[in-house]
């Protein structure tokens, strides 16, 4: 067919060219007339033809029309024969390939609902078969009979499996022949693996001939007109079963004794299916056997076998000991999982204990070479991880590898511990550390206090040392000694009673010593000189007397070389008796001067000193 659009002579009268001579003018007139005549006669048809041509030449119109007919046309053609399928097959295959090449996902998604169940079924079948084989092998390997068969296998040179199969064989289809009924020619033949076969073409012919002979024999001998076909040839340990269709015969060679039901369940359906599927090929058979390759699956479905102890694959049950084995494996996995879980929990517990310890920082932990591994930083004063491991966890220390780098932690406990190591912690002193401040409380020797004040600055983490609540034992002792001293006076006078020169001297030394010690301890000392009288006499006179007595002692002490600045003097008259007056000796004791020592923080002392001494 030509691709060029069809053309038709235009409807309108043709404009005549410029007449060159009379002939051409006449011809033009004739042509005009013809055209006019044509217009009058076929104008309607002309329009219809133009319409049709328009439809034929316009690809869009044609496409629209074809789309209306296409599905119907495909249905009709497919009903007639296979040519449409054959024509489309290469295109479909190519499209499929190209689609998969471009992007396999859509195809995979489309077929996955089919693949899943198919794969599952295949796997379960294979698994069942495997378990069955395993079961058989176990049964036969360890029984007495199994040993006997082993000997036989060794003796005959056959494989053990072969011997087992031979002894446990119930039946086995060894060969299947598909034979052309009329000629006895072999159409297709299959044999079970490891079955020795003779030339199947010849055997097929002979099987047909023998059947024929037996049929004749039956007819001749018993007048058995109905001897249409022979079902079975019994040949000792083998049988040949025949199943026939109008044009073909299925000859099945069976070793052993098979159940008659196989005939109805497998063989008859196989030959019926072949007859149905290949009826035309069978009818027109002229020696070419290649089309019968298609019947192979049907023949293969007839290659059945059954062994002793083997149950129908569909009814096969997994034996108890395999369940036990599975249970054992599960139990082992469970136990392993439990121990692994327990160890991991213990390990976590240990790590948490370490993390809770001040001065221990875990930087890495895990498993290495099958052992538990932990590494990090540890203050030498922090708790010992080995001890925690040994005493607080059930883990085996041999299973744990630890690696610790030393460092100084700033955790308060550790700063305190470090301070105690450096400056020591004598009995009676309570050290505390809080927010950078190290505080000492209690009483300590003067020397220790001096050391502590110096060394506290070198303890990593200590910013300030607070010893305001710390009592200097040496200073206190000295103060107590001074406060115990009482200087007695003559009755009614500011004159010291005789025999006290030595006491004054000792007192002067003691006060001097105290004044010398206190600055080193960061303290200032205040010595109060209190004058007393007995209750005799009038109040104002007593006041004056007590004032004079304290002033007298002040002058004596300063005369001995003690700085005036540390003293306060006060007259208490009879209001603060050294001892309650009941006896004359009490009176004598109250005619005196006593001392009161205050140890002040140095700043406080300085501020007070500016005003003193005064009355």
């Amino acid at each position: 067919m030509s691709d060029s659009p069809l053309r038709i002579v235009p409807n309108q009268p043709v404009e005549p060219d410029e007449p060159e001579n009379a002939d051409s003018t006449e011809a033009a007139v004739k042509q005009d007339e013809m055209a006019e005549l044509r217009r009058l006669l076929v104008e309607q048809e002309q329009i219809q033809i133009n319409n049709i041509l328009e439809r034929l030449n316009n690809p869009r119109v044609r496409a629209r029309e074809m789309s209306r007919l296409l599905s119907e046309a495909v249905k009709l053609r497919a009903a007639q024969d296979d040519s449409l399928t054959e024509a489309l097959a290469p295109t479909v295959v190519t499209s499929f390939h190209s689609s998969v090449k471009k992007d396999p996902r859509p195809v995979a998604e489309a077929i996955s609902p089919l693949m899943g169940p198919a794969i599952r079924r295949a796997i379960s079948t294979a698994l069942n078969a495997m378990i069955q084989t395993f079961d058989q092998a176990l049964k036969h390997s360890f029984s007495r009979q199994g040993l006997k068969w082993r000997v036989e296998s060794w003796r005959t040179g056959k494989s053990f499996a072969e011997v087992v199969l031979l002894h446990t064989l119930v039946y086995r289809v060894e060969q299947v022949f598909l034979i052309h009924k009329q000629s006895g020619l072999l159409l297709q033949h299959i044999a079970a693996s490891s079955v020795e076969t003779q030339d199947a073409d010849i055997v097929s012919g002979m099987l047909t001939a023998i059947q024929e002979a037996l049929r004749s024999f039956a007819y001749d001998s018993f007048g058995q007109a109905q001897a249409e076909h022979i079902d079975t040839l019994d040949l000792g340990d083998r049988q040949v079963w025949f199943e026939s269709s109008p044009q073909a015969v299925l000859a099945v060679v069976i070793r052993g004794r098979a159940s008659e039901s196989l005939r109805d369940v497998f063989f008859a359906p196989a030959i019926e299916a072949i007859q149905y599927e290949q009826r035309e090929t069978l009818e027109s058979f002229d020696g070419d056997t290649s089309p019968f390759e298609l019947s192979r699956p049907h023949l293969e479905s007839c290659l059945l076998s059954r062994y002793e102890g083997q149950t129908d694959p569909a009814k096969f049950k997994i034996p108890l000991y395999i369940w036990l084995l599975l249970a054992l494996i599960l139990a082992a996995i469970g136990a392993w999982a439990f121990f692994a879980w327990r160890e991991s929990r213990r390990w976590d517990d240990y790590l948490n204990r370490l993390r809770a310890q001040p001065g221990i920082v875990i930087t890495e932990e895990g498993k290495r070479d099958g052992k538990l591994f932990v590494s990090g930083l540890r203050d030498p004063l922090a708790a010992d991880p080995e001890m925690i491991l040994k005493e607080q966890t059930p883990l085996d220390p041999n299973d744990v590898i630890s690696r610790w780098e030393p460092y100084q932690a700033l955790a308060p406990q550790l700063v305190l511990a470090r301070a105690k190591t450096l400056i020591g912690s004598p009995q009676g002193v309570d050290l505390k550390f809080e927010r950078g401040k190290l505080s000492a409380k209690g009483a300590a020797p003067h020397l220790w206090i001096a050391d502590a004040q110096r060394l506290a600055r070198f303890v990593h983490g200590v910013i300030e040392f607070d010893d305001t609540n710390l009592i200097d034992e040496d200073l206190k002792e000295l103060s107590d000694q001074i406060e115990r001293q009482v200087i007695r006076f003559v009755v009614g006078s500011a004159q010291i009673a005789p025999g006290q020169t030595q006491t004054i001297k000792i007192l002067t030394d003691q006060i001097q010593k105290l004044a010398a010690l206190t600055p080193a301890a960061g303290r200032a000392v205040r010595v109060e000189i209190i004058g007393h009288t007995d209750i005799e006499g009038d109040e104002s006179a007593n006041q004056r007397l007590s004032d004079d007595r304290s002033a007298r002692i002040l002058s004596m002490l300063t005369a001995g070389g003690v700085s005036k600045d540390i003293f306060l003097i006060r007259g208490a008259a009879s209001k603060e008796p050294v001892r309650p007056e009941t006896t004359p000796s009490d009176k004598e004791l109250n005619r005196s001067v006593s001392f009161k020592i205050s140890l002040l923080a140095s700043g406080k002392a300085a501020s007070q000193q500016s005003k003193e001494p005064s009355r």
Partner: protein
Amino acid sequence: MIQKKICLLGAFAVGKTSLVSRFVKSLYSDQYITTVGVKVDKKTVNVNGQEINLIVWDLAGEDEFQKARMSYLSGASGYLLVADGTRIDTIETARMLRQRVNENFGALPFIFIINKADLASEWEIDDQAVAECEGQGWTVIKASAKTGEGVEEAFAKLAEKIYRK
């Protein structure tokens, strides 16, 4: 593979079996011919580059006690008709057998073999008889089971005839 069934027919003791036994693949002993009435063999020939398996059915010989069983010819594509050159009556038997084949199965391709060509001096079948057969359109081949003469040719010719049909 193309398979063709052919039959060997002839009077008793014309040497059918020995004729082919050297040239075919045999699975069974000759005893089958007397017990079952037939023995099946195979011979592969090449016709115009095409391999053909000839399944040869060697039928029991025809004599006054035993008749060749025509049912064995069912589905055959052709046959070899055998006579004994030293026994003139075997030509008659051959004619009669051909007649029976025609009656049962219509005209099938066949080759007429006159056996025992090695015993030419004892022949009862003369050239005139041979010419007579050829005159009827028969393909006649003189052969010898003993020397092998003509046997291969007979099979090849029959295969060709079947193939050409």
